């Protein structure tokens, strides 16, 4: 008990520890609260939260590339696509209609690892020829890669069904599973459990477990020799090389490890949605993930996670719900004329709010960058740099 008290006192001023605690409690309590608040009909929200978990995984992965190693990646969705398509092809009837005429059904747990390694391989493959490029040039190459990969999958009709995408993917199975009131059923042990789409709680638990594993892994990487090498390369590549850091391997590993997270996030996403289509991996996805990392605080793992959760809830919960809210509000205020579309171009308030979403997204990006460029929960090192400005040489001299 005393040790606990000491632990709490030591960490009560540490924003990262607080963030982890809040997120852990929130993650545990969310399904119960959501079900309770909606009278047992909260499955939709739990499912939404599980999808949000995919973005948390993606943000953790991109944080390795952009936040730790300082390599700007504008095409991260490409690795997400590669992970999803790997799972889609290896765990469905898809390959029957392909030139090899045999369906492959690899169990989810193994396919998850395969997706991870395939994405990591793609990351290394992209990284290898581009390592001598720096800064913006690297960003442009990743942007090009991110545009090519979804189009490639869309065009390879024989293998991927083109625009229709791959559907009816295998679901993960487990020998047993515990269900209970949190999934609005009796407490029981279920044998030969299958993850089905009408049981979002199971998916939610799975993604939370994946996130926990990822956070532990990335935290260890961060404090390892490799993590320090990443930061050295980020701060000054020349100095890092002079200190004996193998910059080529370091950057390649950053690309590969960063990509591996989106690889298994992609496999999970494909399995949960039971559909992989080329439209899910456009440039806007890459930008959204990057914004999540920057919004939360680059280089800080809980920061990136919080950024992902916040931006995800704004983009996928509040904005889609806003038109209906606005309609109800106008109705309650007795201004029903706002809800009718009129011939002079007014589309009705629901449609108007719906059309506003691009502007709102843009304003969020611009506003955060102007008001708090270090992000909501910045890493301490990063915050100092931003305050003093590494690009301003006079400031460096005076400190």
């Amino acid at each position, binding site marked *: 008990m005393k040790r606990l008290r000491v632990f709490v006192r030591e960490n009560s001023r540490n924003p990262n520890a607080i963030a982890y605690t809040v997120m852990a409690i929130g993650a545990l309590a969310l399904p119960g609260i959501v079900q309770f608040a909606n009278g047992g009909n909260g499955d939709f929200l739990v499912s939404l939260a599980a999808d949000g978990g995919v973005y948390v995984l993606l943000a953790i992965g991109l944080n390795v590339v952009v936040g730790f190693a300082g390599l700007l990646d504008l095409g991260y969705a490409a690795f997400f696509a590669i992970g999803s398509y790997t799972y889609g092809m290896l765990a469905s009837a898809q390959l029957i209609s392909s030139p090899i005429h045999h369906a492959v059904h690899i169990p989810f747990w193994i396919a998850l690892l395969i997706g991870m390694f395939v994405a990591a391989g793609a990351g290394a493959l992209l990284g290898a020829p581009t390592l001598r490029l720096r800064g913006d040039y690297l960003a442009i190459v990743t942007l090009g890669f991110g545009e090519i990969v979804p189009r*490639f999958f869309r065009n390879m009709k024989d293998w991927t069904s083109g625009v229709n995408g791959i559907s009816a993917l295998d679901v993960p199975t487990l020998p047993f599973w515990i269900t209970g009131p949190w999934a609005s059923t009796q407490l029981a042990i279920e044998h030969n459990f299958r993850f089905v789409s009408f049981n979002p709680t199971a998916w939610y638990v799975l993604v939370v477990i994946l996130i926990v594993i990822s956070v532990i892994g990335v935290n260890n990487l961060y404090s390892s020799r490799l993590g320090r090498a990443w930061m050295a390369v980020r701060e000054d590549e020349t100095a890092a090389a002079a200190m004996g850091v193998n910059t080529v391997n370091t950057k390649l590993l950053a690309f590969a490890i960063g990509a591996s997270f989106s690889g298994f996030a992609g496999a999970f996403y494909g399995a949960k949605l039971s559909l992989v289509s080329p439209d899910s991996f456009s440039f806007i996805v890459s930008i959204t993930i990057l914004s999540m990392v920057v919004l939360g605080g680059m280089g800080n793992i809980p920061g990136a996670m919080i950024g992902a959760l916040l931006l995800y809830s704004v983009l996928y919960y509040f904005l889609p719900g806003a038109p209906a809210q606005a309609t109800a509000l106008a109705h309650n205020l007795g201004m029903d004329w706002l809800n009718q579309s009129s011939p002079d171009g007014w589309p009705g308030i629901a449609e108007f709010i719906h059309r*506003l979403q691009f502007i709102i997204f843009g304003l969020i990006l611009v506003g955060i960058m102007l008001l708090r460029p270090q992000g909501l929960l910045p890493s301490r090192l990063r915050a100092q740099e931003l305050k003093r400005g590494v690009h301003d040489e006079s400031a460096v001299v005076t400190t």
Partner: protein
Amino acid sequence: MIGALARMPSTLRTFGGSQVSNLVGLLIVAGALALTLQHVLQHSASFFFQILIIGIADGTIYGLIALGYTMVYGIIELINFAHGDVFTLGGYFSLALFPIFGIAEGKAGFGYVIPLLVVAAITMLLCGVVNVAIERVAYRPLRHAPRLAPLITAIGMSSILEGAMYLWRGPNSLHYPDLLPLTRFNIGPVNIGVKDLIVITFALVLVVVFTLFINLSKLGKAMRATAQDRDAAQLMGIDINRTISATFFIGAALAGAGGITWGLYISSVDPFLGFITGLIAFTAAVFGGIGNIPGAALGGLLIGLIRAFSDSYFDSSWTEVLIFGILIATLVFRPTGLLGMRVPEK
């Protein structure tokens, strides 16, 4: 660059070394040309010339947009993602201005030349003002921030502009009035439309005037000096902020003109047109050598041609893959582009 190469392990140095990469690059180009030639020979000559003209017309429009990218990148090293949307905005502004000047479809004639030019001038002015405002609000406060910050605001601004057009005229693509004469005539095997000629001439004149402006005028000299070394330029008494604003203004004016030309040529605009067009124009700027003004024009022309030929002789669904492949290949094998001389690396 030499320093960067010296730090690399020897295996990578040979990979990145100029002879090997030049050889590989040349082989790729030669292979692509041979394949194209084989496909060209399977079709008639008049088809070839028709595609050639479409390619040149598209290419000059891409060149117009690419100039803005290359100038802004040259001067503040920012990929101005909002630039493609300023181009779309040109189409939207001119669409709104046409009724004011009594321009409507179906009554084309010489009486329209002056109003059309006036509309073009006002549109270019408006686009320039919008872009200067964007620079003032979103990029200038972040000039000393890390590189990622202005890049994110640029993407945000792009989203805001797209959203504004979406809000203004709705999500559907808009019909752009057919104002140019549809007459076509033959010169030997070449069937050419008056419309093609007008579009190509208009865009070419703008590119040439602009290049002359950069090379000869005092402001152009200030821009080149600022691009080369901002601090030194400031020491020489150049007002940096004014020069950067002027760069954004001129780049956007060219993009706005590009928007009108695109509308007149393709006859439709939609709020999200600028995204992909902007990326392709950006590829053109990189292809020609980013920061290099004749390079952007040349890159635009080549990308337009590649696009037209790939669309009609090969498979149009692979065209964008090909173009972004060129983007990556350019940066890997020849990061300075076709005509690039300066290597912006900091």
